[in-house]
């Protein structure tokens, strides 16, 4: 018995129980909602269960990888990612009007997905390396490291991913202690650039923003998603229409019911109480991440952990904001809940790293 117990402890030593419980709960919510949103499709559920297994496997692996290994691959990963983005710009495949995919031998990959991890990792590594002598110059170089991949992703165009990566990068810069004066200055400069940015945007991107301001101006076109998802949320009321009972969901009024707009399904069927429960679950993940980050031993782990935690928040916030009609429609899934392997693996990879930071700190200190 003691052998088994010891073996179990050894195997689970690098897992964070608190984080694991919450994320499994969120995945459960996801499965229940996918079941409803897919009109009770069993293949969808089994496919998502497989995704979850893979994601948990990836999480387990990364929870057991000490953070300094990650530090070592930061620079090569970043360089590799930027090169892939350049390849996409040159030879990428166009799908739905955007050049996001790269065909490598047997399969297509989306390098911008990789950059969601690689960019904050690179910035954390960079600040950690120049920790003792951080000057304005370093921040400028860091900003350049951020701008290059973002510029390439915006050109694809993939505004949603670009914004998420910008956010991740900005979190690192902020946590690394970027001076308030510069932050405020940048804020003003950004506001001043808005008309210029507007001019550079694609028509469909502008349309999304205009639609956010007044979805009714194009109710059958770009406003349709927002109008229908807002109706779904609003008609859910306090306690919702009940699981599998959402009319907006089951009569096909909500688009992308198991992926980007899964929150509309959840919200319609579980109401305000369900939404609050979901917000609490997300806050528990973020809160745990903040605690882990605050106690992290090195600047690298602090910055990277902070970036992972805040990026997770950003995913959740942007998705729920988009579904409830306060943010424009961008292709961001609801973390751990939406159907789909890629985002699930990316998120779990990040959470695995958080676990690794937490469980390896004693080793670093000792």
């Amino acid at each position: 018995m003691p052998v088994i117990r010891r073996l179990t402890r050894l195997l689970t030593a690098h897992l964070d129980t608190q984080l694991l419980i919450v994320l499994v709960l969120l995945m459960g919510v996801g499965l229940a909602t996918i079941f409803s949103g897919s009109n009770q499709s069993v293949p969808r559920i089994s496919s998502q269960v497989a995704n979850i297994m893979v994601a948990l496997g990836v999480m387990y692996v990364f929870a057991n990888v000490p953070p300094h290994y990650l530090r070592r691959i930061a620079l090569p990963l970043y360089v590799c990612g930027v090169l892939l983005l350049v390849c996409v710009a040159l030879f990428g495949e166009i799908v739905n009007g955007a050049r996001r995919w790269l065909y490598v031998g047997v399969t297509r990959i989306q390098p911008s997905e990789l950059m969601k991890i690689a960019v904050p990792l690179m910035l954390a590594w960079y600040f950690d390396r120049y920790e003792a002598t951080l000057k304005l110059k370093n921040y400028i170089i860091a900003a350049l490291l951020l701008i290059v991949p973002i510029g390439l992703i915006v050109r694809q165009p993939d505004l949603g991913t670009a914004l998420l990566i910008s956010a991740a990068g900005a979190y690192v810069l902020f946590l690394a202690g970027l001076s308030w004066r510069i932050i405020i200055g940048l804020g003003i400069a950004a506001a001043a650039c808005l008309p210029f940015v507007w001019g550079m945007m694609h028509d469909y991107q502008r349309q999304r923003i205009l639609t956010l301001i007044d979805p009714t101006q194009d109710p059958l076109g770009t406003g349709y998603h927002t109008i229908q998802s807002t109706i779904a949320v609003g008609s859910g009321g306090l306690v919702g229409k009940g699981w599998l009972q959402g009319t907006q969901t089951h009569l096909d009024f909500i688009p992308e019911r198991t992926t980007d707009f899964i929150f509309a399904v959840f919200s319609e069927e579980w109401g305000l109480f369900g939404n609050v429960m979901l917000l609490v679950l997300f806050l528990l993940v973020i809160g745990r991440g903040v605690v882990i980050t605050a106690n992290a031993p090195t600047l690298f782990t602090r910055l990277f952990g902070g970036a992972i935690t805040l990026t997770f928040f950003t995913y959740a916030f942007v998705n729920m904001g988009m579904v409830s009609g306060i943010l424009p429609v961008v292709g961001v899934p609801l973390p751990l809940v939406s159907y789909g392997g890629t985002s699930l693996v990316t998120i779990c990879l990040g959470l695995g790293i958080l676990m690794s930071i937490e469980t390896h700190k004693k080793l670093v200190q000792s």
Partner: protein
Amino acid sequence: MSELTINPGVELRNSRLEIHHFRVRLAIASIFVLCMFMLLFARFFYLQVVQHDYYTTLAEANRISIVPIVPNRGIIVDRNGVLLASNYSAYTLEITPRKIADVEALIDDLSTVVEITPRDRRRFRKLMDESKSFESLPIRTRLSDEEIAKFAAHRYRFPGVEINARLFRQYPQAELFSHVVGHIGRINTHELEQLEAKGIEANYRGTDYIGKVGLEQSYETHLHGTTGVEEVEVDAAGRAVRTLSRSAPTSGNNLVLNLDAGLQEVIYRAFGDFRGALVAIDPTTGGVLAFISKPGFDPNLFVDGIDPVNWKELNESIDRPMVNRALAGTYPPGSTFKPFMALAALTLGKRRPEQVISDPGGFNFGGHFFRDDKVGGHGMVDMYKSIVVSCDTYYYMLANDLGIDNIANFMAQFGFGSRTGIDITGESRGILPSSKWKMDRYKQKWYAGETISVGIGQGYNSYTPLQLAQAIATIANDGVMFRPHIVNYVEDIVTRNRTVVEPQPERTLQLQPEHLAVVKKALVGVNKEGTGARAFAGTPYISAGKTGTAQVVAIKQGEKYVESRVQERHRDHALFIAYAPADKPKLALAVLVENAGFGARAAAPIARKVFDYYLLGKQPTPLKPDEGAAGARD
């Protein structure tokens, strides 16, 4: 600086300070996170609590669709139950133009699967021009089972094209009843506005057709029925998922007419190649037994929207088949006016029946010689003879003695110059000339000379065959006048309740029975020994009638009308008014044959066939209108 780096204590303090700075930043970020989640919560609260009712309504509106169920239109049958307008169910191939980028290309493509004739294309193009693009419009009707199966197999190639089962209107009697039953057609913008003005447009939701003319139009409210409603749950694509509630439609009421389809056919055939009109009325009720305007047209062409080629053909035909001659065509009554003139003379005391005039072959008035039809005149003529031989001179003099306004006042009682109020619309009023009428119409005073030809039914006189039929029916019924009505009763298809169109005596004319007797005796005389004698030779019943001829073009003074010299379309119209049996009339009629010459020759034989069929049940042997004609002119 080098000191600091080698001093571990300083480095530690520095690191602690750094951790402190980091934690401050992390705390700020956490507050930001909390604020954003509060914002989300506020948004959820707003949507799900504050605005909940609003969004619930929207979700329900999304989910529930009210689908109208169109009622079956009432059918129309004749007095013996012969179908005149019925419904049949058929499959149509329909296109929703809005969903299609290039309709022509689509139709080309469709024609490889289902046969589409050039006529179908023309009709569809016309429909497209007339309707809103979101409506689904039929390109082909009456698909065969084979065609349905063929299309179903290719359906995926044609989004925006679908097969629908629809009820269609059919007029089995085609042109025989086209001017009385009328037809339906697609509701146009103007009709929609009218429905809205009446506040009944809701009942027409889902209905594509409305009565356009004839009984279909005048009895529209009875025929249409009440639209039912089905509440269905629909998905985002608009497909019905399930029915939530349903209130059944109520079918429209059936019309049972006074008309006799057999009689109609007899008459239509009796006209032969001639154009004209005939209205036969039951004098004791006003029920219309036959109503013919020839040529007719096939009303079935109009049901799905007529195609431009057929439309042009109908509209530009020299025979003008679209004109309802019986109802809207006005013609000088010619000599058929004389019995009414005689009655006026008796009633107003201007003539006694036995009073005799001398007919020298015409009447001179103010240096103008009004010619009698018979060269040399009819000699000594009393009232009986004046009608039987149709003496013009007698009536020239009489008209002069009566004066135009006395004539007008008397004739107005018979309905001349005013609408009869028959239960179909589009009726002409005709012209009953009077000095007031001329002043109103031409701003000129009446000249006494103009009165003379009014006496023989010429001049400004102009009446519809329907008015003539009503007038002769009134004489037949001893002055009790009924409003003519085509519909006998309206039958509720569910309760079988019959709403009878009550025969309503419109008025009883102030006529002396002995005066009526004089005129009626003379009318019998016409068919016995006068201008109608040849046509009515050997009837087992006694009939009464009066022939008439209406000039189409004025003949110059002193010139003789020679039929063979006149262009066919300028020849005189033949008229005949009659009733039978003379003692107890069952049927009164007026018949007009366009450009057929003398009334006795062309019109009277048709009346004979009507009486033979109606009173004796005798099918006429095919014979030409010329046969049995009298040699004498009226």
